[in-house]
């Protein structure tokens, strides 16, 4: 029903979604945390008393105290400073990779769904391949091949995510394509690109946005997983997963070294998942009431 409406109605549809979203407490909590994290990413280095690489050999393995709110690590580095600085790696890499996957995967899926035939078959087989390799395995292999680094990790993660978006967009396009207004546009001699951009994408976009929001969350976990085994972001940088791996050796005596980075990961992932969940409910309120 929402599909046949004109742009005026679409705008009101948009405000209805916003209204529903604003009423969802979980989504709003997620949004607030997301904003806080964004502030940390932008201004993190100016918010802390120490720099992330400052080593203080007089203050190694210090328990949380007034000087070091979350204690220090094996090299006497302030854990809080490192965590705040590290937020940028998780976030920027994850967001970047999700955008990469969504754009490349989306284009692939849209083309496959729209043109069908041989193109569709080729893309579908490619997706079958994607599906039969566990994501983490593919991501690790790519990240070893590309080497460690911020952009290479983004690329490795981004390539891993292509399959999911291609699938979503293909399904959406197939569904939308069957509608009469597409036939009408075709009958009016509208070009393929015009139909895809003006009619199909706007209608298929909402599951993609939900999936992207959730994707940032799972991306952060993937980055931490890579960091935990020494892949991905270079190990001298305070990436959360790498910090977990550092702390692991000392966790019997200094549990905060493992607890703190873990809590950062959970909080961030939770924020994106809560917001994504709320977004999905707002876009498709069937399951509410």
């Amino acid at each position, binding site marked *: 029903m929402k599909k046949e409406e004109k742009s005026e109605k679409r705008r009101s549809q948009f405000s209805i979604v916003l209204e529903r979203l604003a009423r969802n407490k979980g989504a709003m909590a997620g949004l607030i945390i997301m904003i806080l994290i964004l502030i940390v990413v932008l201004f993190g280095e100016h918010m802390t008393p120490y720099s992330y690489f400052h080593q203080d050999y007089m203050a190694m393995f210090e328990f949380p105290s007034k000087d070091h709110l979350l204690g220090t690590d094996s090299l006497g580095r302030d854990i809080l400073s490192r965590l705040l600085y590290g937020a940028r790696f998780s976030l920027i890499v994850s967001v970047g990779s999700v955008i990469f996957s969504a754009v490349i995967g989306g284009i692939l899926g849209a083309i496959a769904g729209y043109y069908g035939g041989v193109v569709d078959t080729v893309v579908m087989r490619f997706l079958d391949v994607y599906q039969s*390799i566990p994501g983490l*395995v593919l991501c690790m*292999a790519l990240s070893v091949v590309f080497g460690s680094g911020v952009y290479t990790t983004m690329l490795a993660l981004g390539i891993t995510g292509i399959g999911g978006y291609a699938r979503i967009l293909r399904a959406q396009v197939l569904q939308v394509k069957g509608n009469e207004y597409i036939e009408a546009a075709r009958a009016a001699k509208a070009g393929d690109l015009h139909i895809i951009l003006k009619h199909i994408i706007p209608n298929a976009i909402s599951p993609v946005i939900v999936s992207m929001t959730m994707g940032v969350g799972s991306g952060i976990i993937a980055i*931490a*997983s890579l960091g935990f085994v020494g892949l991905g972001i270079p190990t001298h940088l305070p990436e959360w997963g790498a910090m*977990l791996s550092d702390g692991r050796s000392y966790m019997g005596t200094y549990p905060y070294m493992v607890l703190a980075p873990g809590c950062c990961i959970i909080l961030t992932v*939770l924020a994106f998942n809560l917001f994504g969940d709320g977004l999905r409910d707002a876009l498709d309120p069937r399951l509410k009431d």
Partner: protein
Amino acid sequence: MGKYIVKRILWLIPITLLVIVFVYTILFFAPVDRARAALGMGASEQAIAEFNEKNGLDKGYLGGLIIYLKNLLHGDFGVSYYTSVSVSKQILVRLPYTVKLAILATTFGVVIGLPLGILAATHQNSWLDSLTMALTMFFSAMPTFWFALILVMIFSLHFRWLPSVGYESWKNYVMPVVSIGLHVSAIIARQARASTLEVIRSDYVTTARAKGQKESKIISDHVLRNGSIPVITVAGGNLAAMMGGALLIEQIFTIPGIGTYLFSGIASLDIPVVLGCVTMLSVFHGLIIVLVDIIYTFVDPRMKVAIIQNSAKKKILRGGETT
């Protein structure tokens, strides 16, 4: 039906071949000198040439691929570049640990997650529902490897109840299974809740109510079966992914499964090891998907028709409309 299953299994062959080509391509073009990595920096030119010849690395991209596929035809997965140990032997030795872990964790996830999700749906908006949703939200946001570390911290290091390394006793499996299983149960609970809510709103449940059926019987006779159908997909997909995806957990608890092997292969770009594991994973994945389809036909009689026609399947899974 039998014909259909055979067809589906045969279909796995081209897919697996594509997987091999895909992964081989990624690994082959990695900028790394395998011979020097294996033999050390000071190795002689002759030793390097021998190494390359032995492992087919001197044949180039296509030559190496053809040799690998030819050997695969004879059931030979090759040997590791660095240890010279047969890949198929390693996989066979390691598979039982991984299978055990995967099956236990998935079972744990279904046993905890399915009833919880259904309860949450039937008590929608109650405190039970809110609590379940909050917990599942939390557990699905938590990295399993971090949770595993926390468990180790509590139960091995603090209380000393459970061993943190090893694989001999059942005690070794408690923490690995729980750390993965809780995550799986969170995902399954959310799926079960969503699909149950959809079923509860369906017309046939109203019909049952109009017959004078008790609410508890409506849940057990009408809702349970229909609501758990999408859960099968989630559980199956998870089982498949876990055959190789329990990588970090196997590492943490030093379980000598496929995960640790695959990881060592990836880290050193050991092509035969990675290809062997990935081939096995992809075949397992395919077989599990076929198995899931077979289970469907028992749970949902519509699926027998739909699967064989292979068309209406998705539609049925999504809504339950059978037009």
